[in-house]
């Protein structure tokens, strides 16, 4: 028998979601009881405190300085918003004057005399509401720009995603423009190697990075303006994405919404597993960042594709799927719509295996069916690429075809030179020629064939789902953090109190601590 879709057991899928929701509760209670320096800085960014000052040769953000001052003066328990409101009342000044005062070191927010608590809280609430309205305005502005151009989403084909990673934002613009001319729909500015470990967001435009370009407000703006300017010329809307993992998740989300980014690679698990960021710290930060994304209409892009790089990808299907379910829950807890969840997966099985293409189709199609509304982010082969650029190009052709026939939302284009360097302009162009051919030539292919319900592909996908259910049950039994410690994901072990940025987490008393944003932004936590 042949059917249009793979025969996946709906009850098992529902059961996976239910267990994932329970796992999500463990993270939710953590978020309920704690905040972090990063989250507080995110709040300050929402209030518009985006300036920076020269500090030991660096551009150090005012938001960091404020949180440092509050921490030094034991004032973090009330939350940064409360003390900003307090300072504004005490000094009877506007936000920009406060910002200048802090940058000019004439105001130490940790030492401003406390005003009447009730009055301060009320004022803080007003500030938050105003910031929330601003966020909505940025969103409206973006929607308007989008409405003037044709959205490639409506073309019923995957979006073509390419990276630029020269280290210099102006060079990145040159490369991005060229890619857009050759058909790219999403430009991802890859972030400099070390940035996820920085506990502040660098300031201004930058021209020096390793393996990528610093994610800064200035750089966001430069690229956004360049892409917006291209829209009318190429007659389609070009999306922009950047990285929002590491120690500054919510701050970057706030800056991204201000500067009109469309997507963010937003996944605490990436930070935990691959950058050794403290799990509590980054999961708390992630929630606030996702709230911001949710309200700003920014798609989050999750990083499960990475798990397959440190494990045997043939066997990793269950952990990828389990993590996708968990990521979905945490996005739902932040009020996100499935249409905003660009859930990640990848074609990373060893190409030497017999039937490897069948296995890849099975997983791609299975993911499509389990997350029907999500603009799935499907990543090309990387790990098994070698310096043989010709064979790499062949792998990419197969990837493009699988992406097309299984209706993926976003295809992260493979580069022939993947194993050698970050893409040159011509590498990207050759990759775009490949995908343009495949997408154009295979348009509507998925409507033309069905799956053998007893066949290899069906059985392989059913097994992944079964294994995932078993795995989720195990994670639930052990507890999420214990499971991470036991190497459930990516074959990497991390402990709840280990990793970078752990000292930035602090416990809160909900009666004292003030953060009206959760409620305003529709947090389910």
């Amino acid at each position, binding site marked *: 028998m042949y059917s249009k879709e793979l025969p996946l057991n709906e009850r098992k899928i529902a059961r996976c979601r239910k267990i994932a929701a329970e796992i999500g509760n463990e993270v939710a209670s953590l978020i309920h009881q704690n905040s972090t320096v990063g989250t507080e800085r995110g709040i300050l960014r929402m209030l518009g405190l985006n300036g920076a000052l020269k500090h030991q040769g660096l551009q150090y953000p005012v938001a960091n300085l404020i949180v440092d001052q509050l921490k030094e003066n034991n004032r973090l328990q009330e939350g940064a918003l409360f003390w900003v409101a307090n300072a504004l009342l005490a000094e009877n000044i506007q936000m920009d004057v406060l910002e200048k005062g802090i940058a000019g070191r004439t105001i130490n927010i940790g030492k401003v005399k406390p005003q009447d608590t009730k009055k301060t809280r009320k004022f803080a609430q007003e500030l938050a509401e105003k910031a929330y309205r601003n966020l909505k305005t940025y969103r409206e502005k973006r929607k308007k720009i989008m409405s003037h151009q044709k959205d490639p989403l409506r073309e019923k084909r995957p979006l073509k995603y390419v990276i630029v990673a020269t280290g210099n934002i102006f060079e990145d613009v040159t490369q991005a*423009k060229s890619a857009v001319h*050759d058909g790219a729909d999403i430009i991802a500015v890859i972030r400099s*190697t070390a940035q996820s470990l920085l506990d502040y967001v660098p300031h201004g435009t930058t021209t020096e990075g*390793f*393996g990528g370009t610093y994610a800064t407000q200035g750089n966001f703006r430069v690229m956004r303006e360049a892409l917006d300017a291209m829209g009318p010329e190429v007659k389609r809307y070009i999306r922009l994405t950047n990285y929002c993992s590491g120690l500054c998740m919510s701050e970057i989300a706030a800056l991204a919404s201000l500067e009109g980014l469309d997507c963010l690679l937003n996944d605490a698990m990436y930070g935990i597993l691959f950058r050794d960021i403290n799990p509590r710290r980054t999961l708390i930060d992630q929630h606030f960042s996702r709230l911001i994304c949710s309200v700003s209409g920014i798609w989050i892009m999750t990083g499960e594709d990475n798990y397959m790089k440190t494990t045997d990808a043939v066997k990793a299907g269950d952990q990828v799927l389990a993590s996708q379910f968990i990521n979905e829950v945490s996005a739902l807890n932040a009020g996100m719509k499935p249409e905003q969840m660009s859930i990640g997966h990848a074609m990373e099985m060893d190409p030497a295996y017999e039937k490897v293409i069948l296995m890849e189709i099975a997983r791609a199609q299975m993911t499509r069916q389990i997350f029907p509304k999500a603009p799935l982010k499907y990543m090309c082969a990387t790990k098994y690429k070698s310096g043989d650029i010709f064979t790499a190009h062949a792998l990419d052709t197969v990837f493009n075809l699988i992406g097309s026939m299984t209706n993926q939302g976003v295809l992260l284009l493979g580069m022939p030179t993947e194993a050698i360097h970050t893409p040159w302009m011509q590498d990207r162009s050759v990759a775009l020629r490949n995908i343009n051919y495949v997408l154009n030539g295979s348009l509507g292919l998925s409507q033309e064939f069905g799956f053998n319900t007893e066949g290899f592909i069906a059985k392989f996908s059913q097994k992944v789902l079964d294994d995932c259910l078993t795995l989720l049950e195990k994670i639930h039994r052990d507890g999420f953090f214990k499971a991470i410690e036991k190497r459930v994901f990516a074959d990497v072990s991390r402990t709840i109190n280990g990793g970078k940025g752990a000292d930035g987490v602090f416990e809160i008393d909900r009666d004292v601590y003030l953060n009206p944003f959760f409620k305003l932004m529709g947090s389910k936590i």
Partner: protein
Amino acid sequence: MAEINLHQLLPYGDTTQDGAVQLSFTLPVEPSAKAREAATQLVRSWGFFDVKIAHMSSIGVGYAFFVVMARTEKSIDYPKVEAPQLDLQKRDYKEIDKKILQEVKRPIRLVGATTGFDAHTVGLDAILNMKGFDGDIGLERYKGFKVVNMGSQVPTEELIDRAVKENADAILLSKVVSQKDIHIHDMRDLIAQLKKRGLENRFVLVVGGPRVTHKLALELGYDAGFTIGSRPSDVANFLYEKMVEKKNGKTKK
């Protein structure tokens, strides 16, 4: 088969000694007859002849992409080429293990890490972790090695501290990211910091990564370099031979 003259070694296209190569590159100008001619002259100026622009097309706006077929007469005297290579006797895991226990008489202590901001661990893990790589088991599985794998993003100082603390015999460094020669920078950093602490002769120094060659490793002051496709047993074998050599007080080059 045609005679191959190794003293005048040339690329092989489809005829012996034809010197055929294929190139691809981009020029920051629009494709045009002039651009094509410029590309031809450019390739000729690099010492090629019989230059054929097989393909020219635009990339974005203002850039022309070329695929070029050409030939060269510049040959190399192959027998005279020197490329340091580890010359190891082939041994399997069981044999190496047995020899270490017989000749070194204790497990060889190793400390490995990826330093700097490099977060890549797959290569180092492939050598060190139990499961190994390409069907070849990792050094952790050997009785002849005691392995400390510090993982990635390790500051050089911490790697040295740990090696001292573990009284290690060898340090195993992995460097994967190579943009702007960061791998070379970090390789030098380890050597410099060891020198600063007077530890330059204390450890056997091994480095690995996709852009590392044995030659580069030797030039920078390491004892060996392992690149793409290296297997744990290659590394095990080297470490064993090096330890025996050290024990016997010989220093062969």
